[in-house]
């Protein structure tokens, strides 16, 4: 089971929100989805992209936690904040480069995607990946992905001078070995008159 990995291809997302509904049904956080369905550029397109936790090798959320409440287990999964320790300061929310953790005011605690560790640790697939009809969220063997897809997986992200390595892969165009998140690339182009 441990050779199964998570692959996200936002270009395949059809915005059906099946992943959000499936996440809500999980017993460990019933009624609250820990997956965000984001619009890529809402004014210009209906394209959406699912955002799950990327499970960084060196998680920024855990590094900045002043209460020592976020832990990474042996399988590389970065867990939600511990109820007994989380002080609800939202440091992790601000620190995460992917915008994954959310502060839940009703319980004064941070909650985030934990890759359904209760399921994946016993060989099952995460809830979202089991329901995604377009396989934008795919949980399976790396060789299957390579065989079936034109795109190729990357797990390195360049944020300015910092390279972030993750457990979860994102499908990108062939030939790329990392994704560059230079903020200037995503600024609207200004027309000077």
């Amino acid at each position, binding site marked *: 089971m441990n050779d199964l990995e998570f692959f996200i291809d936002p270009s395949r997302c059809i915005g059906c929100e099946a992943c959000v509904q499936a996440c809500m049904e999980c017993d460990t956080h019933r009624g609250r989805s820990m997956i965000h369905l984001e619009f890529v550029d809402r004014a210009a397109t209906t394209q959406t992209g699912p955002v799950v936790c990327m499970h960084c090798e*060196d*998680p920024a959320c*855990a590094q900045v*936690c002043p209460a020592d409440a976020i832990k*990474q*287990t*042996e399988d590389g999964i970065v*867990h939600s904040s511990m109820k007994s320790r989380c002080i609800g300061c939202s440091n992790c929310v601000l620190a995460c480069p992917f915008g994954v953790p959310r502060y839940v005011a009703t319980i004064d605690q941070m909650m985030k995607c934990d890759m359904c560790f209760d399921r994946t640790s016993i060989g099952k697939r995460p809830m979202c990946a089991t329901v995604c009809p377009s396989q934008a969220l795919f949980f399976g063997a790396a060789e299957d992905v390579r065989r079936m897809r034109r795109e190729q997986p990357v797990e390195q992200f360049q944020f300015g001078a910092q390279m972030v390595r993750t457990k979860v892969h994102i499908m990108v165009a062939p030939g790329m070995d990392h994704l560059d998140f230079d903020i200037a690339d995503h600024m609207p182009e200004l027309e000077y008159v």
Partner: protein
Amino acid sequence: MSREFPVRADEDTYVTRREFTKFLGLTSLAFFLGTALAAGRRLWKKIAANQTEAARVAAVNEIPVGGYALFRYPTGDDPCILLRLAEARFVAYSQECAHLSCPVMFNAATRQLECPCHKGLFSAEDGRVIAGPPKRGLDALRVSIRRDEVWVKHESES
């Protein structure tokens, strides 16, 4: 990465041999210092009590035979009890029970000092333990009669 705030869950609960030894050493040291402090305090009180002058408690005719008088000696924080067991026999003890320092009370019918907290019983004759949880007898004071007045003095253990 700081050792105090590890990101890995297995490091969070991991205790190194050095940390465990340090904990054992410091805890033992704290226990030793606490015991030494308690022993030193008791020794200091004993030395201070030995240097206290004799004190007058009451006139002989103020206490009937089988009666008692409460007083404080050598300081205001040390309750004591004076008993008149016979016409010419006075004894005085610290009122603090040797178990947990509850004040003992005199029962003239049984000629015993009773601790109401845990039913410790002491003999009124010499202060020794008769029953209950105390491990040692009551601290006795030396009583003397001078000109029809009862005086007490700390009994030095030399």
